[in-house]
């Protein structure tokens, strides 16, 4: 069922507030909600929250035969489906337009930007490669699920460790984590996604990381996925309010600065979790 669109007073109030650069949750227009990152007991399990939006990402690995076209490369697949759990507007089965955009964008930002080195996932050429499966579950839709999912996905990939495999002659020996330390995936770079929302009134400045209401009232989104090295991986402004190129470039610069901060935060969080895990091991 399509949820009723926001009522007239809600709409007018939000537009009025945004015109004065006030957002309902007290942020300034180009401010992101600070993400909450929680690691699960397993490696590669992470829950990420941006305000009310919550997403779980889970990475698992399995050994498979590679595709004949690419015998030296591992396989990475991303599974994401917005279940009705996130919000009543999503149904199982036929994917909504938003879901298609999110899935494709995740695919482009994480998979096609070569964030994970695929060749290092090869065990023996043409025979065995790792199949890394990233599953993204959307728990609550509080607006901007894409950025949250992208963040969760990339953290999960960096958090994940696969067991070490050795090829001796014809056999593959899988070392249990107790024997040899599991190895992390070879990550080339970590793309982070930033979504800006534009509003019908051209004088209203665009906002970063729109909340659900802002997203519903927006007249177009622009998502930029980029890494801390200032490389844009995906830039997507699919229609919506027409913008000047200067405005787009300004927002790209904003995203560049945000990516730097977010990257530092993620690095710190991962280090913290790793230290914590190490301390646990020593106790045993």
């Amino acid at each position: 069922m399509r949820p009723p669109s926001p009522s007239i007073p809600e709409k007018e109030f939000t537009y009025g507030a945004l015109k004065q650069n006030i957002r309902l949750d007290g942020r300034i227009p180009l401010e992101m909600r600070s993400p909450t990152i929680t690691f699960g007991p397993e490696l590669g399990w992470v829950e990420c929250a941006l305000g009310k939006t919550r997403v779980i990402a889970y990475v698992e690995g399995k050994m498979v035969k590679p595709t004949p076209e690419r015998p030296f490369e591992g396989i990475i697949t991303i599974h994401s489906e917005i279940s009705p759990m996130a919000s009543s507007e999503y149904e199982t089965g036929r994917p909504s337009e938003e879901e298609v955009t999110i899935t494709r964008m995740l695919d482009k930002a994480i998979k096609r930007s070569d964030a994970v080195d695929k060749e290092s996932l090869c065990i023996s050429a043409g025979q065995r490669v790792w199949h890394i499966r990233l599953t993204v579950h959307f728990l609550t839709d509080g607006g901007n699920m894409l950025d949250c999912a992208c963040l969760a996905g990339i953290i999960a990939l960096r958090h994940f460790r696969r067991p070490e495999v050795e090829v001796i002659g014809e056999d593959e020996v899988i070392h249990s984590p107790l024997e040899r330390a599991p190895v992390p995936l070879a990550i080339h770079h970590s793309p982070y996604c930033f979504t800006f929302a534009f509003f019908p009134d051209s004088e209203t400045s665009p906002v970063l990381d729109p909340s659900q209401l802002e997203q519903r009232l927006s007249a177009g989104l622009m998502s930029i996925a980029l890494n801390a090295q200032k490389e844009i991986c995906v830039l997507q402004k699919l229609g919506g309010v027409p913008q000047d190129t200067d405005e787009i470039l300004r927002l790209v610069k904003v995203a560049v600065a945000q990516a730097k901060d977010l990257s530092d935060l993620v690095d710190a969080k991962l280090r913290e979790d790793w230290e914590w895990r190490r301390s646990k091991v020593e106790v045993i």
Partner: protein
Amino acid sequence: MGSRIEILNEAGFRSDGRRQHELRDLNIDLSRHGEADGSALISHGLTQVLVSVHGPREAKMRSHTFHDRANINVEVTVASFSTGERRKRLRGDKRILEFAATIKATFEPVIRTSLYPRSQIDIYIQVLQQDGGTLQTCINGTTLALINAGIPMTDFVCAISGGVHSTSPMLDLTTLEENDIPHVTVAVMPKAKKVVLVTMETRLHVDRFEEILNLARDAGSILHREMKEAVLNRSISLVSTAGPAQLREKGEDDMNVDY
């Protein structure tokens, strides 16, 4: 496979003999096509797309209507023979769905949908041949088909793809080039000088991006000129076929009218 082909040789020519900023041949056919209210057959080089527009008409599904504006429905079909490798694309393919959603979102701010509440505008896109720049061709074709159908729009939408080979920007890429270098598709409204759509899927440094974005915006106005001319030519040919008949009829009724 692309690495054997030189994208840009030392003399500054591309693999198909074009210069860096040179566009491919643009062919536009706006003649009437079947039942459609407006259609356009457009080709950028070897990429060819047929777009037909129906509407504004009553929506087949009432749940898809809006009480204050028209709904735009875009359906894209990619012919299985359109690429070098024969490949069947199913309608439910996420890539195609995204493609259709992109085109829909591009035209939503341009079409004056508020003039037709509770109705639907159908845009059917058939991709016949693909040689790079499929999205740009679809968007340009849709603009022309909409104009041909007489649907009110605030401006043209002209799309162009661009890429960067090491540090040199190029325009209007072929499949060969698209496979090898980072590329951007930009759709502009030439009169307002604003950008409706930007999509980039490959890694590129921020500074390079700025360069290509500005270049593509300028290329959009060149395309605009071509597209405008095609619409004018079509109108002229319509007038010239309908004109004499009208003149005769009118002439019998009223001899004094001065044409």
